């Protein structure tokens, strides 16, 4: 049986995490959206807000209740903390006839992620696989990742572009958290069911006022999450998807989507599993000092596939196809998992509302088999 945390005591959880030295980062309202940033108190959470999402469209709306987590994922993802958009890798100084490398000494912050959704736990697991478990470890990611404290939240509703059920990634958190909450608003009552997923989590829970849940409270929480399953805004049929996309390399739909695609790269930037980056070396005017910077990159830019003599993927068609085929098909060969967790961000934040689930459907339905 889970424990119960009364909503009025949520602040204490934040305080305990802060006292333990964590920088608490959580959803918060900024510029008409719910983004992730550092918070000080529960008052910084998007209490009473929700989001309406559709292709190329995101709107904040007031809720009729005071839910703290009554919305879904926004334009940011936790990757901005674990795999920073811009980071300096090292500096170098001219010395005699050579140069000396000055390694980067970064104080890696201890983050407590507060309000992580199930699809996002899956996205982080994918990054673990790619950036830690493979042959080459990314030290920037690893250093940050090791210290994270994760407070997950089971989704009490699904958004207009969510499809975690199709991808088997939600809406109920099943791993990868220290604590998981389910928010319950039941008439006058407002509480969270709490379960721990690690020793670290249990330790934190021991410092906040909890009581054992009644059977009825725990059932209400389960029911809420079960209802979320039925609310998915999008659906993606993943049957044989790896082969489907490989077979349809020449499908005319790629031309059609390319006519709408702006090659603006928004989809890759918002995607919680896209990890590509570019490296830039800069020198000062004197040529005495140099720096190496890493920045998020995207398979939608021309530079991304620039090799001696030109671009490998010069057409929009080849770039969109690369992105979608990698995400849903080649990723499976490469990392033994889909690269998509069904969070819907690429759909909501595509300025022209290109919808990955719709593109798969179109190809599936109009496939010419020979």
């Amino acid at each position, binding site marked *: 049986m889970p424990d119960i945390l009364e909503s009025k005591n949520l602040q204490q959880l934040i305080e305990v995490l802060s006292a333990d030295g964590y920088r608490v980062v959580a959803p918060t309202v900024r510029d008409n959206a719910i983004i992730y940033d550092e918070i000080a108190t529960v008052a910084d959470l998007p209490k009473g807000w929700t989001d309406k999402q559709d292709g190329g469209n995101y709107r904040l709306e007031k809720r009729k209740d005071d839910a703290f987590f009554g919305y879904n994922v926004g334009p940011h993802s936790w990757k901005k903390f674990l795999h920073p958009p811009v980071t300096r890798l090292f500096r170098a100084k001219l010395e005699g006839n050579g140069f000396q490398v000055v390694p980067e000494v970064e104080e890696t912050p201890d983050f407590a992620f507060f309000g992580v959704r199930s699809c996002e736990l899956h996205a982080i697991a994918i990054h673990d696989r790619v950036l830690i478990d493979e042959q080459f470890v990314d030290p920037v990611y690893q250093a940050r990742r090791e210290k994270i404290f994760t407070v997950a939240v089971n989704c009490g509703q699904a958004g207009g572009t969510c499809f975690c059920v199709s991808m088997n990634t939600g809406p109920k958190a099943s791993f990868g958290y220290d604590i998981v909450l389910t928010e319950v608003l039941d008439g006058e009552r407002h509480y969270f069911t709490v379960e721990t997923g690690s020793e670290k989590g249990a330790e934190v829970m021991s410092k906040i006022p909890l009581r054992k849940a009644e059977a009825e409270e725990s059932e209400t929480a389960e029911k809420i999450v079960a209802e979320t399953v039925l609310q998915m805004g999008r659906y993606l049929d993943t049957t044989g998807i790896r082969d489907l996309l490989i077979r349809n390399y020449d499908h005319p739909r790629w031309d059609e989507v390319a006519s709408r695609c702006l090659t603006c790269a*928004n989809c890759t930037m918002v995607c919680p599993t896209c990890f590509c980056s570019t490296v830039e070396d800069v*020198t000062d*005017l004197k040529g005495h000092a140099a720096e190496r910077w890493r920045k998020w990159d*995207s398979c939608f830019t021309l530079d991304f596939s620039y090799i001696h003599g030109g671009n490998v993927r010069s057409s929009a068609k080849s770039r969109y196809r690369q992105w979608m085929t990698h995400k849903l098909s080649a990723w499976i060969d490469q990392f033994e998992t889909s690269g998509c967790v069904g969070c819907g961000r690429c759909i909501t934040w595509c*300025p022209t509302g290109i919808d990955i689930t719709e593109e798969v459907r179109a190809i599936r339905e109009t496939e010419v088999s020979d």
Partner: protein
Amino acid sequence: MKRKPKLAVWKFASCDGCQLSLLACEDELLAVAGQIDIAYFPEASRATVKGKYDLSLVEGSITTPHDVERIQGIRRVSKHLVTIGACATAGGIQALRNFKDVGEFTRIVYARPEYISTLDKSAPISEHVKVDFELHGCPINKHQLLEVISAFMSARKPNIPSHSVCVECKLKGTVCVMAAHGAPCLGPVTRAGCGAICPKFLRGCYGCFGPMETPNTESLSTQWKVLGATDAEIQRTYRGFNACAEAFKKEGLRYDDKETD
């Protein structure tokens, strides 16, 4: 000690804003002056040193027969020629005249139009001479200018992206004004460089840095219409500082026959 490379800064039809970006570098300008012999820069110093110049920065567009001769001379005395700003790279705001009859303007505006010697087009420098690198923006970004000069000093390729403004929004964590506010934004078809300033201030991008590498203006316009923009508004948006940059010109012209209101 190696000879310091000689730098020249030239001006054609322009507002001087891009040259001012160099002056606005302040502290960095001293560093530039330490490494480079600023041999010709009338905006900053009266002292002039004769060519050849190792690096010429050219601001402004070509609008008169005299400009044509002058830019050819500058090319001859410049080992490397870099154009800076929307005027030099795309013809600037004054290229709006390219869509109309200049003779008619001249007759309306000047008492003695016969004294006016002008071309019927405002043209980018690259239409007249070979250009080694184009730095876009209206005005250019001073950090990008320093990057171009630093890269030149180290004989390396400058780190100047040609992807969309959207990438800059996302690197900064700026919320997309198009998706979250329904504000028409030119960012998806515009070259990065400004640091996505307008979306940061909850406005759509105006396209100051000109078309990005592979602009799909037609698709963006379709979305603008969904957001309620009229044909006339779309045309006006593309008829800005970069009106004659190829992709923006083409998109603007698509609405020419529809110009009713």
